[in-house]
């Protein structure tokens, strides 16, 4: 695993892409808080879409709305938000690759995103094969897991910085 991380750090370091990201972050006034805000707004969309949908599947929110209709309406917004956050996050990662690829919380966050996005895809696929609202135990289990993951991911994001603070080794 670590070979891959070190290879990525080496590949990004001193590239034009890294220079461009560093230029944006260091010279455009207010760029760091603005790009971080864009990232949090993306998280807000994730809360309003996939988190709400999972809460609906668990019968905890928006019970007056149809699951099938919510899925069609909300998930496109969710995938766009995920793309937005991949891009806004990439600016920060490409600027300082060693900061992120050496940080175990960042690596865990990326792994959690892969799992959570796959689960969301499963929720979306199940919707297609079951046009009526499905509230089976399997659906609820997937929804609960997906909900937990989408809440853990921003938490992990926040803790990338705390790990550096607690263990200066990672700085």
């Amino acid at each position, binding site marked *: 695993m670590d070979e891959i991380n070190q290879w990525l750090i080496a590949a990004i370091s001193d590239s034009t892409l890294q220079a461009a990201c560093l230029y944006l972050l260091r010279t455009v006034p*207010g760029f*760091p*808080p*603005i790009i*971080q*805000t864009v990232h*949090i*707004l993306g*998280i*807000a*969309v*994730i*809360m*309003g*879409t996939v*988190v*709400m949908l999972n809460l609906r599947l668990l019968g905890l*929110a*928006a*019970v*007056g*709305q149809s699951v099938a*209709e919510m899925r069609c*309406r909300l998930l496109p*917004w969710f995938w766009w938000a995920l793309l937005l956050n991949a891009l806004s996050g990439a600016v920060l990662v490409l600027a300082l690759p060693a900061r992120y690829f050496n940080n175990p919380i960042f690596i865990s966050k990326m792994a959690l995103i892969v799992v959570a996005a796959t689960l969301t895809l499963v929720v979306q696929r199940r919707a297609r094969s079951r046009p009526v609202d499905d509230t089976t135990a399997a659906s609820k289990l997937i929804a609960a897991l997906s909900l937990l993951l989408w*809440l853990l991911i*921003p*938490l992990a994001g*926040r*803790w990338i910085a*705390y790990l550096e603070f607690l263990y200066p080794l990672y700085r």
Partner: protein
Amino acid sequence: MELLQAPLWTDIENWPLSFEIAVSWLFPLLESLHVIAAAMVLGAIFMVDLRLLGLSATVYPLSQLSRELAPWSWWAFAITTLTGLGMFITRASNHVLNPAFQWKMVLLALAGINMACLHWIISRNRHQWDLDRSPPVAARLSGALSLVLWIGVMLAGRWIGHLS
């Protein structure tokens, strides 16, 4: 403003609780919860704003959407307020003088006023347009204003740390 320079703010920083939060794992915990709850506040509010603008969820009456989403934004807002206060007391005298913090409070107040306007002025004849895909201009304006103000609150909030 004299109030912003008052000894009250340093007194608050000297509370035992403020110290306890500042030097322990409580601060990162509060901040993490603050970000997640804030994202939930905006996520739920944006859904209603987009409905007001006629851009999403137009199959549902506005009243239903707002009834189902409001509790989530209020509970999440309660969490952001509590966690926010917890962080505020650790550096109160600094924060009240921080322009980003001041902007955030002003924008929060404006967002609150906008919400009150929507409820008390526009909602009076809501039953007439509750099902309309595109609500009256005043309601759409309020929805657009809400989107802009809450994005501003988020931006100002994120900026606090970059100035202190």
